[in-house]
């Protein structure tokens, strides 16, 4: 039991500790409120609260709401309650500390990143090349970038609003696949005569219930995968704003970042406060601007998330330059697997906008046969111009 955290003697009691734990979880991105703290305390009275394992199970059942959170929970629990006998001085963090927190929006906060000279929400320059410390490397790099980068440095609020408008139009272009035939529906615009007559048999020939039909909305879900490796960092500003906008335009959108790992950012992007969403995303995208493993990341996507979220009505949007450090077969294998799920595949490559560009990078060449659309995109305007092509998919 020596592993259990000890608390300072002026500590106000177990209730405050649990509240402190909830605050600890909240700081780490779980969305919890007062109700959970209350429920947690009540729940602990129903089990043997002195046993750490039981506490852990109880609090996990209450505080988590998805598999990702459940996976994260154990480490958070250990860091708060199992701090190797160290004395915890302050249970509830001071209020002002929360205000300047990493995950909190602070529009007037001063940027404290070494590389940024502007404020944290305004990039150094206006021309979209906000990243100053890279030299615009266009080759894939092996090394993982372990330094933290605050993505809020790269993205401005106005851009997200602009991107949102574009994303909404693009979403609409992809989505509006009306069928010519009508199917039975509760709130249809026409009467479904065959069904009405058939139904009237059970009420003695009186058509009591009028059945209706309408043209079904063939909704399409957008799944966006954005490459944030070193070679892509100059374009990250545009693409991240675009992802945030896409998410705001349609809440069914699914979004991922990858560099050497794959991270699902859908949950983080759902945050109502745009800058806080980007802040949360930057916490998750640890390793931003490092090496790129496109193939393995895509394969991981095809093996895990795609099984749940990609089907015949999905459009998979890959935002990447195709510079991969791994063999090209990985990309081909991943895309073949994805394609089997019946989705449409769109690859937006910023390099394609260059004069004399040819998709000779091994990864890109391997991907080409599997793509439904391969287009250039390095600015928001380019993305906006894609609308007719996407509508034709």
């Amino acid at each position, binding site marked *: 039991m020596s592993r259990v955290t000890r608390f300072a003697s002026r500590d106000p009691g177990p209730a405050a500790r649990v509240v402190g734990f909830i605050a600890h979880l909240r700081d780490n991105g779980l*969305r919890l*409120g007062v*109700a*959970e703290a209350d*429920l947690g305390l*009540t*729940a602990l009275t*129903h*089990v*043997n609260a002195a046993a750490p*394992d*039981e506490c852990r*199970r*109880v609090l*996990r*059942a*209450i505080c*988590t*709401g*998805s*598999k990702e959170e*459940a996976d994260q929970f154990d480490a958070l629990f250990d860091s708060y309650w199992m701090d190797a006998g160290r004395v915890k001085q302050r249970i509830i963090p001071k209020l002002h500390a929360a205000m300047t927190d990493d995950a909190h929006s602070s529009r007037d906060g001063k940027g404290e990143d070494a590389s940024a000279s502007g404020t944290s929400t305004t990039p150094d320059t206006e021309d979209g090349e906000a990243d100053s410390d890279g030299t615009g490397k266009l080759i894939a790099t092996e090394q993982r970038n372990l330094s933290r980068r605050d993505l809020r440095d790269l993205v401005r609020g106005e851009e997200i609003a602009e991107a949102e408008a574009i994303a909404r139009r693009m979403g609409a272009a992809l989505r509006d696949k009306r069928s010519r035939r009508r199917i039975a529906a*509760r709130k249809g615009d026409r009467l479904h005569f065959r069904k009405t007559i058939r139904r009237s048999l*059970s*009420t*003695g020939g*009186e058509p*009591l*219930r009028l059945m209706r039909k309408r043209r079904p909305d063939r909704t399409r879900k957008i799944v966006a995968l954005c490459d944030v490796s070193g070679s892509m960092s100059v374009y990250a500003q545009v693409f991240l704003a675009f992802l945030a906008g896409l998410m705001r335009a349609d809440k*069914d959108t699914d979004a991922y970042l990858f560099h050497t790992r794959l991270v699902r950012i*859908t949950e983080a992007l*759902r945050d109502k406060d745009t800058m806080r969403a980007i802040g949360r995303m930057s916490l998750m995208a640890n390793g931003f601007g490092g090496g790129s493993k496109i193939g393995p990341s895509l394969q991981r996507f095809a*093996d895990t998330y795609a*099984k*749940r*979220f990609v089907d015949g009505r999905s459009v998979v949007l890959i935002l990447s330059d195709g510079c991969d450090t791994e063999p090209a077969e990985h990309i081909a294998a991943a895309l073949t697997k994805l394609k089997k799920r019946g989705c449409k595949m769109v690859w937006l490559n910023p390099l394609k906008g260059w004069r004399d560009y040819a998709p000779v990078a091994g990864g890109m060449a391997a991907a080409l046969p599997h793509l439904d659309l391969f287009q250039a995109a390095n600015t928001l305007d380019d993305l906006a111009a894609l609308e007719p092509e996407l509508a034709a998919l």
Partner: protein
Amino acid sequence: MTWNTLQTALAAHNYVASDDLSVALHLALSLERPLLLEGAAGVGKTEIARTLSLTQGTKLIRLQCYEGLDASQAIYEWNYQRQLLTIRSAAEDGETGKAVEDRIFSREFLLERPLLAAITQDAPPVLLIDEIDRADEEFEAYLLEVLSDYQVSVPELGTIKATCKPIVILTSNGTRDLSDALRRRCLYTYVEYPDRATELAILQARCPEVEAHLAAQIIGFVQKLREEELEKTPGIAEMLDFAAALMGLGIADLTDDPAVLQSTLTTLLKTQSDQAQITSEVAARIAGKAA
């Protein structure tokens, strides 16, 4: 009751529940909160509700969700045929107007669907809302209302208040993300594939006639198979089918006959590419390792 007794009670009905799941169930019972279970297909999410209703000695009311599920199938519907017949017979008897109307819009003519049935029982039943991720988001919102207020309003009748709070279990396969509001209101547990010891216990509880040697082989085989890259990973139900198939064919040892083993794999592998991938040589190799 503690969660240990609940776990033992479940085991008495042949359900081997993990500690996590038992604690969550115990909390759901004592805090009267809905419990949301997620996990791959075939890990026993639906079965837990059935077993829980057995241990509690109450009814199981099941609502299977699907795309386009609406209030008339989930909550209530008027029995139109009976109403019509009553109107006709009333007309012949000379009964008129208000009296007939009152009669045909009474509880007698209301068809209870699962949600209404669940809140109007005498003893709290187990309400299983299966595969909630298949239902539309509008239905999810409506479900939230029923689950928080425990009442249903019927315009012609007024509000029907709950006579008991059902034990609610929701399951989801994760084909779409559920709303935060629903997640917040529920306790949550992710059900994993069981480990070797647990799965062996499940097999012995469900098929006690399988010999210890073969049982260990079956579990070893299935666990190894789950590590392969398959499109559809076999669940517990498939493992039990596999065991039953082996019993039916009278096989005592997996490594005996590769051809027979391959033919029984139809119970475990459910897609063409998976079957193509696990050839009889691969199956024999896995069986050899598992033994």
